[in-house]
């Protein structure tokens, strides 16, 4: 009985936490606007009139984007750290932090999104294959 009571209490706490969180979402304005989220959710077939759920999705997306961006920022800073030389120390550090495709693709790789660029493009499927007999 105690165990059950404890479980019930825990459940109530969780539910209250959830409801409190949803209530707090009404005050919090996510950076991603509600209209945009509604548009894409409608595209995927998501039907819900509740604004709090829209905000929940918006916040979840914002969290995802910020995590990817943080990862990319770390990559950017790591690259700058390796490039820095002793004499040009200040010049390198003052450089602006710009999001590159390289950093972004590495960051997205962590999250399971393959966004790599091709390293090189061949002219034709047989490029480089003819050179072998020619060398002979």
């Amino acid at each position, binding site marked *: 009985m105690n165990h059950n009571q404890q479980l019930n209490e825990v459940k109530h706490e*969780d539910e209250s*936490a*959830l409801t409190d969180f949803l209530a707090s979402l009404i005050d919090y304005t996510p950076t991603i606007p509600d209209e945009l989220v509604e548009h894409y959710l409608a595209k*995927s077939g998501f039907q819900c009139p509740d604004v709090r759920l829209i905000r929940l999705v918006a916040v979840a997306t914002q969290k995802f984007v910020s995590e990817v961006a943080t990862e990319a920022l770390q990559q950017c800073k790591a690259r700058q750290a390796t490039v820095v030389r002793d004499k040009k120390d200040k010049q390198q550090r003052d450089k602006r932090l710009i*999001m*590159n495709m390289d950093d972004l693709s590495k960051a*997205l790789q962590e999250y399971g999104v393959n966004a790599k660029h091709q390293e090189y493009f061949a002219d034709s499927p047989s490029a480089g294959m003819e050179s072998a007999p020619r060398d002979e």
Partner: protein
Amino acid sequence: MSDGGGGESVKEIESCLKKRRKHDEFAQAIARIAVAQVCEGVGFQGFQQSALDRLSDVACKYILEIGKTSKFYANLAGRTECNVFDIVQGLEDLSLPQGFVGASDRDHCLSGSGLIKEISQYVSLSEEIGFAYSVPSFPVIKERNSTPSFLQAGETPPTDAIPPWLPRFPDPKTYTYSSMPSADMEETQMRPDRIEQEHKVLEPPSSRLEQLWACSESELPLVIDQGDNVGRERGSNPFLNTPLQPGEKEISLVSLPAKLKEEDMVQNHGLWANHVSALNTFGPANQAVKSCGCDAEEGSRKVLLNNRPALQMKFHIGKKSLDIANRHNYKGKEEVASWFVNDDVGDAKEKRTEKLPREPMDIEEHTGNDSVVN
């Protein structure tokens, strides 16, 4: 070869992608701004355009994925509307590769999910950055004015076979020939297609028509007059008027030179359109030619309208002589086909020069010969 083929397919793919993007440009632009703001909050000071596009694209796809998975869980539970637990389950599915607290728990309660705690932590810790612009609700749905049903309009359907809840029939004024322009201004503007059908229908005349008949001097078909009036009703757009019937308007005829036969003009008419530009080498003579040519075209059109001369194909070998009229007869419609054969390129140029009116003939004759020599 392979590059060309590959290039073309790439272009097709690009054009398809561009068409797809055009439908969603507004939403993608907003997503770009929002993502840029989030990244700025994280610490970035600048973006590569392609990197920003890529990240905003991924964010939009993430929203789509959440919607899809939530909808899936709602449908699984036999519902069409999603609730918070569907969203939590969807988010958990998407976050499994990353992991969250309690992901390995088999029977954890959704309301106590680690994901919710993480998100609430993020909300409490992060700065609240509002979106930079005020976004209108989109997509904007255009309101359609549907035709009211018989019941709504208070009418009874003409036959019993038609149920009254169906939309009512259109106003007979719109498809029968009649009516004052002021009264029917709105109707004619709303249904321009019907008006075009009016032209072809001869209805018993109304009072307005009788007035028109009294006014008009020429004996023209009713349809044409009404067409003109209707055209005027529609804001006097000359391009929407009915075409004039032959003989309706008096046009001054061009006096054709005596030497030119009607047959030649019939042949020339089609050829002028294609090869006027090719005569640029002939300089000042060309301008005279063009002006004559335009008149000649009109004259030929009049000739065509009045009577179509029979094309006479006289097959005999023509020399490069003044016997040009016979030359025209020889070539006839074979000219067009022959021009595509490389052998006759020189001959083609010669033919073009020879079709010029005879008045400045001396000049053309020489230049024609020059072109052939070259």
